[in-house]
């Protein structure tokens, strides 16, 4: 109760102070939990703009992704009320929305123009047609490749390559003596790291996590083909120790010029083309993530989004903040200060219609990748779940992390692909049974 009393008192004091400056007299302090990615850091720097406009103050709790996830999940499931706004992903939004833990974003203002949000993003952040979180930025995945190395190898990257082409090109670009690996991909354990990559890749090989009865599908040929292809290609042309490489490891390899190709999040495009950190900024090309001709590509869909926990005392102020941070105006604000290449991508249709943004080399490929991803229809064979690189059920994060640990062990040669798949099958079925699916 002391905390509550203090919060009330604090809010009262703050509003008292603010009311002298602002006519509405309801200024509040919002505590916002967010992830430490570049776009969010930039948002923190621009908070003054929000405070000026509304009078509300903001306290930031910026945490590394995994810590953030465990922190906000604990708080939301126990109704701790430590945060007024939480930054969550496309995985959490529908699950939490279903449980009634988030305030529905029904009453957004007309000028906010909710219909401008890319349909894929809106769909992924809704449950049952209700939007529960507003996308701050969105991403898919695509191929980033070295145009100079591709040329040297005497090949040309099509806009929509197949996996066979990628493998051939990787082998041709590999030059071990000069420390150049044809392809760098995520092998690191963790559902958001290697787990996300291999799941998205498996979609293009016709695999799926579950059949319609929620039976694990790791005993199928499709999964075996996916892993065999991945390991085969990475052993041929990947960097040493790829089984521990995640997003950041591959990013630094690519920036140092040690990768011919890298298939990863579209937001990485602005990092690899930034001459300040990247030694290869001038020679990066982009293409859609590969497929195998089965009708599904291997790109994923993700958004970092802002949501308000149900039961919050500051819904109005929090809504104002969300409208500010995910608005068209915010994008323009960033563009005016940091340039168009650094605005939060992938959330709004209008951004991609903006002539200023069309010149950005990776803009078109980012949009095409996002548009070609459909969380509601991600697998070749029918599946009971929503999501591309994940299945939006509460159990998935835990299962996929364990499964990806088995895969990583197979990449490192500590067990065979067959053994890894057999274990994955057992782990998944066991966990699904524990959760009461069967």
């Amino acid at each position, binding site marked *: 109760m002391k*905390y509550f009393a203090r919060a009330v008192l604090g809010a009262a004091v703050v509003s008292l102070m603010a009311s002298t400056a602002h006519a509405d007299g309801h200024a509040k302090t919002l505590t916002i939990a967010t992830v430490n990615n570049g776009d969010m850091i930039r948002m923190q720097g621009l908070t003054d703009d929000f405070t000026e406009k509304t009078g509300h103050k903001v306290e930031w709790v910026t945490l590394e992704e995994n810590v953030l996830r465990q922190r906000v999940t*604990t708080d939301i499931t126990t109704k701790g009320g430590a945060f007024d706004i939480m930054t969550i992903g496309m995985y959490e939004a529908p699950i939490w929305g279903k449980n009634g833990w988030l305030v529905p974003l029904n009453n957004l203002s007309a000028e906010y123009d909710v219909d401008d949000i890319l349909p894929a993003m809106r769909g992924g952040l809704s449950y049952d047609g209700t939007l529960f979180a507003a996308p701050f930025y969105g991403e898919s995945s695509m191929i980033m490749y070295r145009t100079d190395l591709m040329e040297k190898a005497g090949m040309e990257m099509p806009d929509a390559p197949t996996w066979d082409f990628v493998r051939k090109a990787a082998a041709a670009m590999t030059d071990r003596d000069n420390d150049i690996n044809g392809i760098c991909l995520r092998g690191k354990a963790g559902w958001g790291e290697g787990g996300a990559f291999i799941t998205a890749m498996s979609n293009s090989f016709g695999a799926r996590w579950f059949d319609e009865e929620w039976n694990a599908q790791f005993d199928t040929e499709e999964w075996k083909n996916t892993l065999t292809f991945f390991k085969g290609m990475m052993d041929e042309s990947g960097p040493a120790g790829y089984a521990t490489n995640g997003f950041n490891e591959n990013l630094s390899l690519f920036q*140092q010029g040690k990768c011919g190709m890298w298939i990863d999040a579209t937001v990485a495009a602005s990092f690899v083309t930034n001459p300040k950190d990247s030694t290869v900024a001038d020679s990066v090309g982009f293409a859609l993530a590969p497929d195998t001709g089965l009708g599904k590509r291997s790109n994923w869909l993700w958004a970092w989004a802002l949501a308000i926990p149900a039961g919050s005392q500051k819904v109005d102020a929090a809504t104002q903040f969300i409208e500010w941070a995910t608005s068209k105006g915010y994008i323009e604000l960033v563009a005016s200060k940091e340039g168009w290449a650094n605005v939060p991508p992938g959330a709004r249709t209008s951004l991609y219609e903006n002539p200023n943004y069309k010149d950005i080399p990776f803009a078109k490929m980012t949009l095409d990748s996002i548009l070609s991803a459909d969380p509601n229809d991600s697998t070749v064979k029918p599946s009971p779940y929503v999501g591309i690189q994940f299945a939006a059920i509460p159990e998935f994060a835990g299962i996929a992390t364990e499964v990806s640990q088995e895969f990583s062990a197979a990449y490192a040669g500590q067990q065979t692909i067959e053994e890894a798949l057999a274990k994955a099958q057992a782990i998944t079925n066991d966990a699904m049974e524990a959760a009461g699916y069967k």
Partner: protein
Amino acid sequence: MARAVTTQRKTLNTVIAWGIGLLIFFPILWTILTSFKTEGQAIADPPLFLFFDWTLENYAVVQERSDYMRFLWNSVIIAGGSTLLGIIIAVPAAWSMAFVPSKRTKDILLWMLSTKMLPAVGVLYPIYLLFISLGLLDTRIGLTIVLMLINLPIIVWMLYTYFKEIPGEILEAARMDGASLKEEILYVLTPMAIPGIASTVLLNIILAWNEAFWTLNLTAANAAPLTAFIASYSSPEGLFFAKLSAASTMAIAPILILGWFSQKQLVRGLTFGAVK
């Protein structure tokens, strides 16, 4: 009577000890060096040792992004407060166990240590719920209490060991001279135990300073200490080594300085041996 030591022997000792010391310290030295590089230089191949363009940019970025002093202040209060509180509670307990041992002393000591065996993550939900209902979530007082409880067994153990080193005869002599229990503790025991207490304090401040589970999971904006500060610099999207190194250096520096000062207290242990 000090043992005679040849210069040759001393030189040899110095060379070996410095060699090993620098080897052990190297990862930290490397972190500090990296904090003065740009992100690009931080991952340069081959690695840059000293010849790069030294920059303070990372420190500027870190300071601009997060209010270092606030995190630092929370860390100081939480680590210092929990250690102080722990010492106050542990000194009498350790004293009585060391000088008035009973048959159960050893069992109690072991039991105290066993309270640390429950993995923290297993009780996150119970403790979190408890904190919500007590209104302690995101408060410094709540964290101070938790860290004190976590480290109390360690404090008791360390003090107990140091107290055990003190010869009981000295205390008896004081008692014979008519010293009261209070006088005995204040004027006889405490001066002798200062090196032990000092190293206990130092180690426990470090343990509390670095405790990263409860300090992260029970705080939001108000009570967050340096572990939360670090968690906002570890593994973001993009290159982060130079900035993480700068943030780490800032998180380590206060403790390093404290360690430097308490060094004198630790050295006093040498004379302590001579008292015996």
